[in-house]
């Protein structure tokens, strides 16, 4: 699993990556009450806002970690946003995407580096 400075995690599955938010991010957000997912098939660029998450406190965005195409979204989150708090690094993945340029993956942190990053 790789981690971004935006507190996302990425897991490579073949030529796709699965994207979610870290346990740390979910704790910071507090109780999640709303998730808006992108349409499958959407072409996105790195840093595009692709998911909206609203917690009891505030709205925040998830950015596309790399360029590519959204291939699948986890629509169970729409009906059960609380899953993001229950299992952020497991069941509560947000979307899968096909990566245009795999070299964009190189800059991400491994778990040890991420743990150090969040202190």
């Amino acid at each position, binding site marked *: 699993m790789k981690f971004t400075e935006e507190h996302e995690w990425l897991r490579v599955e073949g030529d796709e990556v699965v994207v979610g938010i870290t346990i740390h991010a979910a704790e910071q957000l507090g*109780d999640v*009450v*709303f998730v808006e997912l992108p349409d499958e098939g959407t072409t996105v660029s790195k840093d595009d806002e692709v998911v*909206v998450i*609203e917690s*009891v*406190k*505030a*709205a925040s965005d998830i950015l596309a970690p790399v360029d590519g195409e959204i291939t699948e979204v986890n629509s169970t989150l729409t009906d059960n946003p609380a899953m993001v708090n229950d299992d952020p690094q497991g069941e509560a993945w947000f979307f899968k995407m096909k990566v245009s340029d795999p070299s964009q993956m190189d800059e991400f942190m491994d778990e040890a580096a991420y743990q150090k990053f969040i202190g």
Partner: protein
Amino acid sequence: MTDLQHTPLFALHEELGAKMVPFAGYAMPVQYPMGVMQEHQHTRTQAGLFDVSHMGQVILSGADWDSVALAFETLVPMDVLGLGDGRQRYGLFTNAQGGIEDDLMFARRGDALFVVVNAACKDADIARMRAGLPDTISVGPLEDRALLALQGPQAEAVMAGLDPAAAAMRFMDVADLTLDGIAVWASRSGYTGEDGYEISVPADQAEALARVLLAHDAVAPIGLGARDSLRLEAGLCLYGNDIDAGTDPVEAGLVWAIQKVRREGGARAGGFPGAEAVLHSLHDGPARKRVGLRPEGRAPMRDGVALYASETAELPVGTITSGGFGPTVGGPVAMGYVPDACANEGTQLWGALRGKRLPVTVVKLPFVPANFKR
């Protein structure tokens, strides 16, 4: 957060694992490990303990009750003189334009008036009272007292277990109680829509009292996050969001707080700042009104979201002033101001959220029925 003031419960909040945030110059708990959603539900179903010691507590005293009450009536459009001993009322400080400078609770304690004001406004409120009241009325801020709130359906049982007199109090009564040996001033009121008490306690005994209350299985500590969602569902105004110096009490839907004796034709009509504007607004009806709003779907609409009369209208007709997710409602809830013509229940409006227009329906307030012991 070094320059922030601490309430007498600061150490207890940290011990309880609270997440502390700056609020009105104080370090305050926004949530505890339970989390906002569960804290909200706990307050609605059992009892929640809130630290509201950041709020301003002030005693006004003078020669007798009539002189104190009549002096205070020059600052607020409420019937103060007619307040019975041991009773409390909701009030507003108005300005020369009829706008709201702050909202407050005031209670009669014998010949004195006990006033509780918002934290962010307390310095201005104390200055306003000192400047606006005659020298014969003393304005005494109570800096050595903390304020706790115990709210929820189990609050009465918890309080009555400590002092049986708590059970005899009705909504908006105030009384001196002794809770586990600690002498307090209690009122049967709050800011959640639930039955409950606000408890003014000497600062040096506040932590001991909080521990006594928290020792009950039914009582959990509740942070500002749930305090906000509870008051929003209860349709209660947040000063600075839903009411401010530019909103008058009539458009804010607070006419009920202006007793008849202070209105046109009343024995003590007018005589408060902005009386002409407020009485005019009362007579003619306001141009805009504060309303309850239910956004469709699950996306919360927060303060600042513009409201439109149609999906394509160019100009907004109003704005959301408070909004979020209502845990008891199970969906997004909001309040805002709209023109009188759009204020009828069932009116369909659109809120602009992230570049999209989403349907919003005007609904009756509160979102959750009040559970007061009248």
